[in-house]
Structures are given as structure tokens and as C-alpha cells.
């Protein structure tokens, strides 16, 4: 599984990093981030690309999600 750390990155870099991983052919990615906005945007992108999103850690200042195709 690919790992992606987007903590502390401002909009829309987390989304772009995720998209880059998906475009490179990743089918399973573990993503770590910090802001609620990036959580919403990354999961929205993943769903729109046909991934299922499994949020594993969901705190206000840190989150982790697994996306799978």
C-alpha cells in the first residue's frame, strides 16, 4: 500500500498529491492529513475516482484514511 503524508499542506496540495498517486496507478493508498478541509476534499476526490474511503483516524486536527479501488 502506498503512503501519503499531506499534514500541514494547504489547499489544494493534498488533493493534488492524492490525484498524482491515483494517476500513477495506485489502487490502495493510506493518507494522513491534518485539516478538516483537506479530509473533505481528499475523500471527495477519492469517491469521484471510484475509490472506497475508509476513515481510520478522525480527530479535528489529525486524520488518516485508506482509499481502495
Amino acid at each position, binding site marked *: 500500500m502506498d503512503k501519503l503524508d499531506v499534514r500541514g499542506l494547504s489547499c*489544494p496540495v493534498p488533493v493534488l498529491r492524492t490525484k498524482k498517486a491515483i494517476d500513477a496507478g495506485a489502487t490502495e493508498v493510506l493518507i494522513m492529513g491534518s485539516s*478538516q478541509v483537506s479530509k473533505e476534499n481528499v475523500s471527495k476526490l477519492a469517491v469521484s475516482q471510484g475509490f472506497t474511503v475508509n476513515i481510520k483516524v478522525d480527530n*479535528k486536527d489529525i486524520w488518516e484514511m485508506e482509499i481502495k479501488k
Partner: protein
Amino acid sequence: MNRNKWFILLTGLLIGAFAAILVKMGNPGNMGFCIACFERDIAGALGLHHAGIVQYMRPEIIGLILGAMFTAMFSGEFKARGGSSTLVRFIMGMFMMIGALVFLGCPLRDVLRMAGGDFNAVVGFIGFIAGVGGGVYFLKNGFNLGRAEYSHSNVGGYLLPIIFAFFLFLLLKGTIFNPDAGGPLFFSAEGPGSMAAPIGIALVAGLVVGFMAQRTRLCLSGGIRDFILIRDNYLLIGFLGIFAGALVLNIAFGFFKPGFAEQPIAHTMQAWNFLGLFLVGLTATLLGGCPLRQLILSGEGDMDAAAVVVGMIVGAAFCHNFMLAASPAGVGNYGQIACIIGIIVMTWIGFSYREA
């Protein structure tokens, strides 16, 4: 459309409606809200520049930042954070203000101007789209101002909201420290700075919009950026809502006057309408948000966004002290030079901050 999209549409409609009502209640034409113009007026109210026609402590701005802060606190999202190229963001805020004052409005006012029938704003809008497109080019090539860190103390996040709350206190109290020179706050006797809706209404409008903009993450540059980048129209719907809400009420109030000439606080130098908002669109995209979004983020504890807001206020002071700001007569030579320098500096930053 899902629930979130309806909510951001409603947010947009409400902002547009509030904007028209604020003009009806006394704000300058097509300026129910303008983040850049109002921060410029605040710079004047603080005596940072001496352009006598644009000095007022705009309660809308105070309401926006405090509304966003309370909302973020209640939703548990308030968290002091910063450290992502803070000084660079400050300088970028200054240039974003230069672009806005060359055009005469931030992206939000651009939408409101279009909804008032100002065709010059359509030219600005095309420039804005082009500027966001330029920013997207850098983002796609790995542009990144670096990671922000959560702070172990939230104090830093409260600083800017507290400062604005203090300004509100000065506005309401009306104390004059220095009877000869005026101040601490300076107020325009004529011109756009003297035109204002009653404090209470302006403050409530700011608070409500601050709440809704915080919840929806409304951002005007983001709307175009996300559509170009990932074909996502969520933020764009908010944009359309603002236009529709303002348009309907502008027509109802008789404010809608289509044309290029004689538009309120606007000029017809189309190259500079285009380039002014081009600079704003480019800068906003590199910063991750338009002037409105920066204000909302600074209410959430984002100290980098707060640096942009302060940079914009300082930038506004430079704009008027250095004769960079446009007027209804047009854009002067210094403003044209500064706008071009801004575009060059942003391009330089855009290239320099690419990650390998």
C-alpha cells in the same frame, strides 16, 4: 445536487442578497462586500494612509473574522497553526491588494459588480480566470509553500481576531485620543469611505456570512481552480449563488444598470481591469484562497492566512501612499508598473517554490 451543494448555493444567495441590502442601507455602489476595498478602508481608518475618501473601520470585516472564529470554535476546528512561508505570504498579500486596487475590487466585488451590470467587471473576471489558470499551472508543477505546523498554544490564532475586536470597541466607543489630529480612528467626510450601512447591520451581515463561509469553505479562486483542476463544481456553485442573489435584489432595488461607462467605483481601462484581477487570481491560487477565504481562515486560527490579511492591509497603505491604487478616472503609471511587477514576482515565486 447533494445537501452540501444546496447549502453552498444558499450561502452564495445570502451573501449576494446581503450585499445588495448593504448597498441599499448606505454602502458604496456594488460594494455590499469587498474584502480588498474594506481592508483598504481599515488601513485608512488606522491612519496608515491618508487618502481622505477611503477611511472607515468596516464592521463587515470584523464580523467576518469573528463569525468565522466563533463557528470554528463551536465546531472544534479552531486551532492555531502556521509556519508555511509566512513572510512570503505576507508579501503575496501585499501584491494581491495591489492587483485588487488596480481593478478596484476583490473577486467577491467582481461578482457583485457583474451582478450590478458592470461590464468592466466581466473583463476583470476573464483576467481572474486566466490568473487562476496560471496558478493551477504552478500547482500542477509541484508548487507548494511548505507545511504549516499546529502550534502547542492557541494564543497566536486568537491574536488577529482580538485586534479586530479591539478595533470594533474603538469604533463603537468613538473615543478621540488626539483632538487636534483626530484618531485613533480616522473617518472619511466624503467619498466611498463616508458611505456605509449602519454599524449593527454591517456587523451582523459580516457575522452571518463569516459563519456560512466557514462552514462551506466558500472561496472564489478555489471555485475556478477546482473546476480546472479536478472538474469539481462545488465551490463554483457558491460563486453562482452570489451572482444570482445580488442580481435579483439589484434589479428589485433599481441598482442594475448594464454598461461600461459610469459604473460605481470602476474604471474603463480594460487592460488593467484584466491584469489587476489576473494578479489577484494568480496570487490567490498560490496562497490557496481568495481574500475572503484568507479572512475566514485567519478566524480559524490560521496564522499564515492572518499574515496575508495583515499584508493586504499594509499593501493597501502602500497602494495609496505610492499612488498605485486606481480611481474611477483610471490607473496611473505607478499602479500599472506595480501590477506588472506583481505578476513578475508571483511568477518568480511560482517557479521557485516547485518541489522536486
